[in-house]
C-alpha cells in the first residue's frame, strides 16, 4: 500500500466526501484511520447486532409480545407464521411451541402490581378466565424448568381444583403450606406462573389476546 508513504494529497479528501475541508494538521495516521472507518463500522455494527441478538434470546425479549395485566403471550406463536423472535427464542431454549389448535399459553413473571414474583410473598390467583375446554396453571423457573417440591404438586388443572359454590376459585401460590388450592413456590428464588388454555375459542390476534379477561395475581403476606 502506498498510502503510508504519500503525503496528504489533494486527492485524499475525495475519499471522504462529507469532510471536504480536512484539517491542515492531519498527518498520515488520521488518513489511515479515515480509510479504516468503513471496516470499523462493519466490525462495530456486527458486534452490536450479535450482542442485541444474544440479549434478546437470553431475556426472551420478543417485540411482538402482548402484555395483558401481569401476563405475557405471543401472537401466532403456535402457528406456521410464528414470529422470527419467538422462533429464535424457542430454538435457543429447546422448548416445544404450544400449537394454536391445541391451546394458548400465558406467562407471568410479576404480580398484578408489577412486582417480580418472589417466594417471600404469598399470591392469590383468582378471577375470570376465557372459556377453555381445560386449563392448567403451573409454576416454573424463569428458564422453564419445573420447580420440585415436597408436596409433588407442580400444576393445577381446571378439573382438579376446589371451587366455591358459585364456581369461582382462588389458587394460593406460596412457599409455605396453605389450605385449599395451594401451588407450592420456591422459598428463595424467582419463578414464573404459566397459564395454558386448551381448546379455547380465544383468537390468536394481538387484540383478542390483549383484551382477554385473565386472572389477577395479588401479593399478600410479603415476609421481610
Amino acid at each position: 500500500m502506498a498510502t503510508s508513504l504519500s503525503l496528504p494529497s489533494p486527492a485524499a479528501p475525495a475519499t471522504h466526501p462529507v469532510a471536504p475541508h480536512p484539517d491542515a494538521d492531519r498527518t498520515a495516521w488520521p488518513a489511515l484511520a479515515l480509510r479504516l472507518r468503513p471496516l470499523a463500522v462493519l466490525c462495530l455494527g456486527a458486534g452490536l447486532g450479535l450482542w442485541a441478538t444474544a440479549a434478546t434470546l437470553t431475556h426472551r425479549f420478543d417485540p411482538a409480545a402482548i402484555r395483558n395485566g401481569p401476563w405475557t403471550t405471543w401472537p401466532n406463536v403456535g402457528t406456521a407464521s410464528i414470529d422470527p423472535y419467538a422462533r429464535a427464542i424457542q430454538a435457543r431454549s429447546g422448548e416445544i411451541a404450544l400449537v394454536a389448535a391445541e391451546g394458548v399459553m400465558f406467562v407471568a413473571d410479576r404480580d398484578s402490581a408489577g412486582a417480580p414474583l418472589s417466594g417471600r410473598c404469598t399470591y392469590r390467583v383468582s378471577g375470570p378466565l376465557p372459556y377453555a375446554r381445560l386449563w392448567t396453571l403451573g409454576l416454573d423457573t424463569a428458564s422453564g424448568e419445573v420447580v420440585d417440591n415436597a408436596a409433588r404438586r407442580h400444576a393445577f388443572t381446571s378439573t382438579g381444583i376446589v371451587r366455591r359454590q358459585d364456581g369461582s376459585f382462588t389458587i394460593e401460590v406460596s412457599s409455605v403450606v396453605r389450605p385449599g388450592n395451594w401451588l407450592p413456590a420456591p422459598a428463595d428464588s424467582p419463578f414464573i406462573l404459566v397459564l395454558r388454555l386448551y381448546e379455547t375459542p380465544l383468537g390468536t390476534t394481538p387484540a383478542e389476546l390483549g383484551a382477554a379477561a385473565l386472572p389477577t395475581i395479588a401479593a399478600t403476606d410479603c415476609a421481610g
Partner: protein
Amino acid sequence: MTGRIVPAALWALATLFVAGIVHLGSVLLVPRLATETAFARLSAAGQGTSVTPLPPASGAQSPVPFRDAALSSAVCRYDLSGGPLRVTAGVVHGDFTAVSFHSRTGRPFYGLTENSAVEGKIEVLLATAAQLARIEAADPGDEPIRDVRIAAPEDEGFVEFDVLPRVGGIASAERALASMSCKVERTL
C-alpha cells in the same frame, strides 16, 4: 463544529444500520444454527419413528423446558425423505388428547385434538408437497378421500402427543400414549 458532528453522526448511523441487518439476519438464522433445539434434544429421547414417551415434566430428566406438568406426552421424530408418515392416535372418550406437528427448525405447522377424531382415532397422513402431489394424482376419482393430509414445510421434524386423562392419572395416560403410532408409508 458541525463539520465534524455531521460526519460522525453519519458514521454512527451506518454502524446502527449494519447492527440492525446483522441482528435481524442472526435472529432468522438461529433456528437453523442452534444445536439445542427441541428436535435435537428429542433425538436423544428416541430412535427412528418410534413413539417415545417423554419423562414427566416434573422430573429432572425432562429433555425440553416449558412443558405442562399436568400433561403426559410422547413424541416421534420423522424424516419424510423415506416416504410419507401415517400418524394415528387412539382417543379415549372424555380424555383431552392433542397431536401437534413441528418442523425441525421449530415451525409448529399443524395441530388437532380429539374433536377431530373419527371412530375413536385421530389419523393424519404427513407428506412433503411433492409426495402429496403424487398421492393426489394416484387418487381414484370416484371415491371419497378419508385421509387428513398435511403438507410438511420441511422433510424433518417431530410429532408431539399430549394426553390429560379425565380419570385414572398417569397409568391411564401411559395406556393412551401407548396406542399412538407413527409409521412410514412406502406405498408410493
